């Protein structure tokens, strides 16, 4: 009888996951969807703890271990998620994803250990006594989980700047070789002598880690959200293998659902940047091509503008467009940016924001950031809308954005960002760029826009500059 209640718990879990994902893809219902999925997860977890029975009808034990694990994980997880700054959320997601991957790999390791203990002395090789499907499920979970774990940690390190892009010639061939090695060792283990399979399994797991590291290392930092999304779907698949292993429907449905949705989401993200997934994975953003472009344009001249002039310029304009980028997020300048918008509004200047879909470090980064500062929704223009407006705009103020306004994406076929849709700010009457220095943006390429005659540079930290700008405009 107990078992039936658990089945119902799992059914509820599966349905809430589907509903949750569905609601998460609509702005109006997203938050509720997240809570519903979380509720379903809670039901599935506690159902498992109290109602799960093994094949011979015994309940689970080791409750002390289970609950201390749950409590420790919950406390650390909540604290980490609550404390993380808005700007660091993508790396937090990556870290949590890595934890899930590691969890899947560890489950496989323990299950392997069970099989190993049972058969190491009695049989020549696993092939004699362990069903292939069972072994395959265990090692697939270990390999995919391992890759996801190691890859996510590298992605996390890249996003917070601890790990630099690293690529060399022939890296993709090396990666393929390592992947081939992982798979052949995993296959070899099944037919090798049963008493030493534990060593082979360990080698499989370690080389999966190595592959995860090598897989993410050459991919440019700007592409990390795409990679995280891909690794996210890997972990989903690893979880689904866990579901196969225990014949557990909620793990299976949840895992496959995320695996499929994550893969599609990865492709949608690539599409937002007008690039293919292959291009992201193999493209090694901003290496050789970028250097060539840098060399070509180093001779350019740019002109600087003072806070005073900027204030006058903006206060007497009819229409101002603000283009926010990662620099705004880093400086945490969203509130003072909203202040600037209000003060200009009082002076009768029409202010709106042009939001590039991949501005910042994650899609939607800028919307979230400006929403935090209470900027009204109808002031945020999407790229197509904004591009229509630029022609009639007097002043464009670019706050720490770079690659998303780089005209090279339209004109320079050799540029690594060629083909990416951009905000066509050069259509406006004048452009003021706030940056900390002339250093290139995340893609590592020079921006021709800065050298154009209608562009002026306003150097400094976005928050400080905006504060000064607000007080200048007040004094006008």
């Amino acid at each position: 009888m107990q078992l039936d209640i658990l089945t119902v718990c799992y059914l509820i879990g599966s349905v809430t996951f589907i509903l949750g994902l569905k609601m998460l893809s609509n702005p109006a219902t997203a938050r509720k969807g997240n809570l519903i999925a979380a509720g379903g997860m809670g039901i599935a977890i506690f159902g498992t703890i109290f109602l799960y029975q093994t094949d011979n009808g015994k309940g689970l034990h080791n409750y002390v271990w289970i609950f201390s694990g749950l409590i420790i994980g919950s406390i650390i997880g909540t604290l980490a998620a609550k404390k993380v700054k808005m700007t660091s959320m993508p790396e937090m997601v990556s870290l949590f994803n890595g934890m899930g991957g590691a969890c899947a790999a560890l489950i496989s390791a323990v299950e392997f250990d069970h099989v190993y203990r049972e058969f190491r002395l009695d049989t020549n090789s696993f092939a004699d006594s362990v069903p292939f499907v069972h072994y395959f499920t265990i090692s697939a979970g270990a390999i995919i989980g391992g890759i996801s774990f190691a890859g996510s940690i590298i992605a996390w390190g890249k996003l917070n700047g601890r790990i630099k892009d690293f690529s060399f010639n022939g890296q993709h061939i090396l990666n393929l070789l390592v992947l081939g090695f992982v798979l052949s060792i995993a296959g070899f283990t099944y037919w090798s002598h049963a008493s030493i399979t534990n060593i082979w399994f360990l080698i499989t797991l370690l080389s999966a880690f190595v592959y995860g590291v090598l897989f993410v290392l050459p991919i440019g930092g700007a592409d990390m959200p795409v990679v995280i999304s891909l690794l996210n779907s890997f972990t989903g698949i690893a979880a689904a293998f866990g579901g196969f292993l225990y014949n557990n429907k909620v793990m299976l449905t949840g895992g496959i659902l995320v695996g499929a949705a994550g893969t599609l989401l990865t492709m949608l993200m690539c599409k937002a940047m007008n690039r293919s997934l292959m291009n992201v994975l193999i493209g090694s953003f901003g290496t050789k091509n970028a250097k060539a472009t840098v060399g070509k344009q180093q001779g350019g001249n740019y002109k600087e503008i003072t806070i005073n002039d900027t204030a006058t310029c903006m206060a007497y304009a009819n229409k101002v467009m603000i283009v926010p980028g990662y620099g705004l997020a880093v400086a945490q300048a969203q509130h003072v940016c909203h202040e600037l918008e209000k003060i200009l509004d009082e002076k009768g200047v029409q202010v709106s924001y042009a939001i590039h879909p991949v501005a910042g470090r994650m899609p939607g980064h800028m919307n979230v950031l400006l929403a935090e500062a209470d900027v009204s929704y109808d002031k945020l223009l999407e790229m197509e809308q904004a591009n229509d407006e630029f022609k009639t705009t007097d002043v464009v103020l670019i706050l720490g954005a770079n690659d998303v306004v780089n005209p090279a994406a339209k004109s320079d076929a050799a540029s690594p960002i060629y083909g990416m849709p951009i905000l066509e700010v050069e259509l406006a009457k004048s452009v003021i760029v706030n940056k900390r220095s002339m250093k290139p943006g995340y893609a590592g390429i020079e921006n021709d826009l800065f050298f154009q005659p209608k562009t002026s540079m306003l150097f400094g930290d976005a928050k400080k500059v905006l504060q000064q700008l607000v007080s200048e405009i007040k004094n006008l």
Partner: protein
Amino acid sequence: MQNFLQFITENQQMIYVVILMIFLGIEVIGRVPSVLHTPLMSGANAIHGVVIIGAIIVMGKSNDDNYLALILGFLSVVLGTLNVVGGFVVTDRMLEMFKKKK
């Protein structure tokens, strides 16, 4: 061939679930606006934390004298919980920013 057919027959329920879930996963998020890409990724990240259930089963089945399984199982429970709890909380925080204020 015999083995393959046998595998399909024995696991047909699972295979049906997998295939339907793949289509459902794609269908369900098909029209997501790019603004929601990151929260959706984060939400999906929390959902695959369902792997925690495997960790709980592993932990709860381990014999008291099998220290390797106990330690690895315990670690996987902690990591899985981190994934689930952290994932949902971080998603909620992201989405909190989206709520409309008048």
